[in-house]
């Protein structure tokens, strides 16, 4: 019974966990490891998590495991990371651009830029922006997931978008210059 419920939860949330981990960490192997770790923790605590807050709980644990992973990465990561991101961007679906190679290339470039801009954000802002923009989470859900006041969420989103725009601007300048 418990196992069946858990499988249902896994199926419902695995992609969200994986997506959040991917955009926070920037590569698939780490995102897979994080997803696995989060799902295992969910299983271990399955009886203690209240169902209405399960989504927020999973996002919080994902954020925390990602932060741990980032700390570990900091030690060993260097040049290879940028190359990986480029490869990942090429493997991402280009949404309806299959019939138009030029449009596909533009979209991939745009995606690369966005990913790079996200990666330039501080980890907490990155997490909040991903939760808001990609997961479409409400401010209250983000506040619950990260255990921070609602007003802080507003401020972080404001700051995150400002920094994203600045990063995108910088990248455009870099390309043009």
């Amino acid at each position: 019974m418990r196992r069946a419920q858990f499988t249902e939860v896994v199926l419902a949330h695995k992609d969200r966990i994986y997506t959040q981990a991917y955009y926070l960490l920037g590569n698939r192997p780490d995102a897979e490891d994080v997803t696995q770790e989060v799902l295992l923790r969910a299983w271990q605590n399955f009886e203690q998590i209240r169902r209405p807050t399960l989504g927020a709980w999973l996002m919080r644990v994902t954020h925390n495991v990602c932060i741990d992973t980032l700390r570990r990465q900091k030690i060993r990561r260097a040049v290879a990371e940028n190359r990986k991101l480029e490869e990942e961007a090429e493997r991402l679906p280009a949404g309806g651009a299959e019939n138009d190679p030029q449009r596909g290339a533009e979209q991939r470039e745009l995606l690369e830029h966005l990913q790079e801009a996200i990666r330039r954000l501080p980890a907490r802002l990155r997490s909040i922006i991903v939760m808001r923009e990609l997961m479409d989470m409400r401010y209250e859900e983000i506040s619950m997931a990260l255990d921070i006041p609602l007003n802080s969420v507003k401020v972080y989103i404001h700051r995150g978008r400002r920094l994203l725009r600045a990063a995108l601007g910088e990248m455009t300048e870099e390309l043009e210059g």
Partner: protein
Amino acid sequence: MSGRTRGSHPGPLLDAYLDGELGRRQRRDVERHLHTCPRCRAELEARAALRARMRAMPLLSCPEGVVARVQAMTARQPTKRRLAFRPRLAWRLALAGATVAVAVLLLVRYEPWQRPMPEEAAYSPEQVMQARRDAERALAYVSYALQLTQQTLEQEVLPAQVVKPLRRGVSTALGVLTESGGQR
């Protein structure tokens, strides 16, 4: 809040407005401000465009291998058990509590150790023996009930704090009763 949007630029409220996260009053104030401030209108448009670009980013699919690995690992691992209400334990505790309470009440009510030695025998030997048997049975019952509960309570707290003093009290009481019976 209205002072903030009327007097100055809305700042973070502009994003909350864009995300539909403002209450009716705040929303109205921001709209009023936007009406008169081209700079904030441009800012809002730029943020909306950024949001649209972000939202076009794909949600990724978790590889099936991850799910399979998790399912294999969870098959070997139990979940942490919740501290649930257990009726049997509750009944045992209630029974033990009630028994102790009755025993204490009886002792307090009759205070056998306080009684003056009767000059004449108040009880027959049979009565004394019967009282002794009853007391021993009650004591055994209390001990048994406590034994059942002590596994789940903090080990040795109850026996040390309740059973021993109680046993001592009952023994004293029995001693008094026996002595008084023997003197008859």
